[in-house]
């Protein structure tokens, strides 16, 4: 068979080839098409399911109060307005809360990730006595819901006293650290922040997958332990650092529990959104001067607008860093 004939053979029409294969080709091709159509429908449905609430919120946020009660208006508002955004921004004191949240989330995330990196590296690379015990403690930290110890932590910081030192210098009084930012930074520095056990676990998994040769070479060349860590290991750990940082940032941004407990007096977006309906009520009352109940529809409209406003920065972040979010978890190769 010459080359030419071979090429002609490849170009044989589909039906001809089908006949040669005894109908197998057609069967297979049609099955593939049916499968891909079913998959497309299913995926479209599920994507719509996830995105629909966001679309819904966007459309509701531009509606006036009349539109909410108008049964004809479903998706596109008849009276287009941006009043809802202005009101929600005022109720949450948005610009101030945004700045506060950004600062706190960034610093907390940076602190948590850097401490977790140290601990994760220590667990991945060094052999020391009672290592299993301490690792079990980490698992315990992942498992214990912070709510279990909430009540006593609450008191711990309400009457803060470190080894009796505070009482000594503060005329026998303990410090009230509730509503101050400091305790949360202390806890983050001690790996006890939001989901920190999980970050340690992820980082440890990541470091365990890196071959040890480079470090050994560094040790042989006379590089110290800390220097090896910062010069050799950290540059390699970029994917896991980015991902942990992003998770820490996002989870801190939306966190209600720790924010409510420790940062009660600081205006944050997460606490602002949780209170928005109450503030709306107070606001209306202040304007009209009478005690009125606001309609469910209207308060939910403001709630939707507020939610949209607090997740917007996160969605923008996600658009740019989507790859890091997704691929980094794969990079850690979580396994039991």
């Amino acid at each position, binding site marked *: 068979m010459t080359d030419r004939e071979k090429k002609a053979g490849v170009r044989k029409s589909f039906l001809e080839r089908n006949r040669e294969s005894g109908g197998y080709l057609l069967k297979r091709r049609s099955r593939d098409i049916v499968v891909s159509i079913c998959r497309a429908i299913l995926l479209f449905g599920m994507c719509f399911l996830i*995105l629909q609430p966001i679309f819904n919120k966007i459309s509701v946020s531009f509606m006036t109060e009349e539109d909410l009660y108008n049964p004809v208006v479903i998706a596109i508002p008849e009276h287009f307005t941006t009043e809802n955004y202005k009101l929600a921004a005022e109720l949450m004191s948005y610009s101030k809360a945004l700045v506060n949240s950004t600062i706190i989330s960034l610093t907390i995330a940076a602190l948590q990730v850097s401490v977790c990196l140290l601990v994760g590296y220590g667990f991945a690379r060094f052999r020391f006595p009672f290592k299993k015990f301490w690792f079990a403690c980490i698992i315990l930290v992942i498992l214990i819901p912070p709510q*279990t110890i909430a*009540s*006593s932590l609450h008191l711990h910081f309400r009457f803060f006293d470190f080894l009796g030192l505070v009482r000594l210098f503060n005329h026998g009084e303990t410090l009230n650290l509730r509503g101050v930012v400091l305790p949360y930074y202390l806890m983050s520095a*001690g790996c006890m922040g939001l989901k920190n056990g999980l970050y340690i676990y992820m980082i440890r998994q990541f470091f365990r997958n890196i071959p040890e040769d480079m470090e050994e070479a560094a040790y042989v060349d006379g590089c110290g*332990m800390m220097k090896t860590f910062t010069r050799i290991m950290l540059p390699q750990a970029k994917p896991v650092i980015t991902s942990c940082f992003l998770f820490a940032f*996002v989870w801190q941004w939306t966190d209600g529990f720790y924010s409510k407990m420790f940062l009660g007096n600081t205006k944050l977006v997460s606490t602002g959104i949780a209170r928005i309906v109450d503030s709306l009520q107070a606001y209306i009352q202040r304007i009209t001067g009478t005690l009125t109940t606001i309609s469910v529809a209207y308060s*939910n409209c403001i709630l939707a607008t507020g939610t949209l406003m607090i997740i917007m920065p996160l969605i923008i972040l996600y658009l740019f860093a989507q790859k890091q*979010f997704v691929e980094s978890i794969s990079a850690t190769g979580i396994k039991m």
Partner: protein
Amino acid sequence: MKRFKSKYTGLQRRKAKAGYLFILPFIIGFLAFMVKPFFQSLYMSFCNVELTAGSFTPIWQGLTNYIYCFRVDPEFNRLLVEEISRMMVYSVAILIFSFFVALILNQEFKGRALVRAIFFLPVILSSGVIIGLDSNNQLMANLANTIESSTQGISITDGLETILRTAGVGTRAFETVFDLIDNIYDVAVASGIQIIIFLTGLQTIPSAMYEAAEIEGCTKWESLWKITFPMISSLLLVNWIYTVIDFSMRSDNQVIEKIQTVMIDQLNYGAASAMSWVYFVLILAFVGVTSLIINKGVYYYD
């Protein structure tokens, strides 16, 4: 002590010290912010905590708080049972859903990157306070009702529900499934991380296995159960634990809301601690028992 010295000598000993230095932040944090509050909270659950201006004094009461939780408080029992049964059903549903989605997302098709991006969006959307706001958004429910009534209740799911209900077989089980299907959004939104973990597992399965199976005449369905499922069964355990823990700490969890009200609004620290301990022990027992059962079925390739 002698064994310790003989085991860790020279460089090893230095490395052991360095190791301790590296994990020192965790040890300090654990002792200061976990161990102490942990035992204090346990102790407080047996006490009546009285707040005075400068300090708080726990007064030993024995089991009074626990009796209060179960026998006096009108809501706690009901909330506990409801939450835990909801957690079981939803965790199973989340696992099945995320496994299924991971299988689909692992295939080659056009626009895969976009679909993946959308499916992982819930990692952001389902975190913290937002999930609680979403789930009791009545406007959405109103909207759904309006749409339903304007289309005069013609929907496939409704039709199916009535047919299956009138069939009268296993009504309770069907009710649970209907409930899940009606709340499929909650399931989808809670399964972002689980999908990523399953997807990672799927990508580590060597394709040679599937090829060999196909040559031997194995159908896709068979290779799903004989290759894919055993190979990622260890991740099933990870995901199960993660799902249960995640679900038990969600901010729209009613037991946790109850604990917070008792603690912050009623200032009843003793009862709040007792409630959270009951809840924690139940969750821990649940995770432990189910993980042991799943672990029996896990296949370890290495």
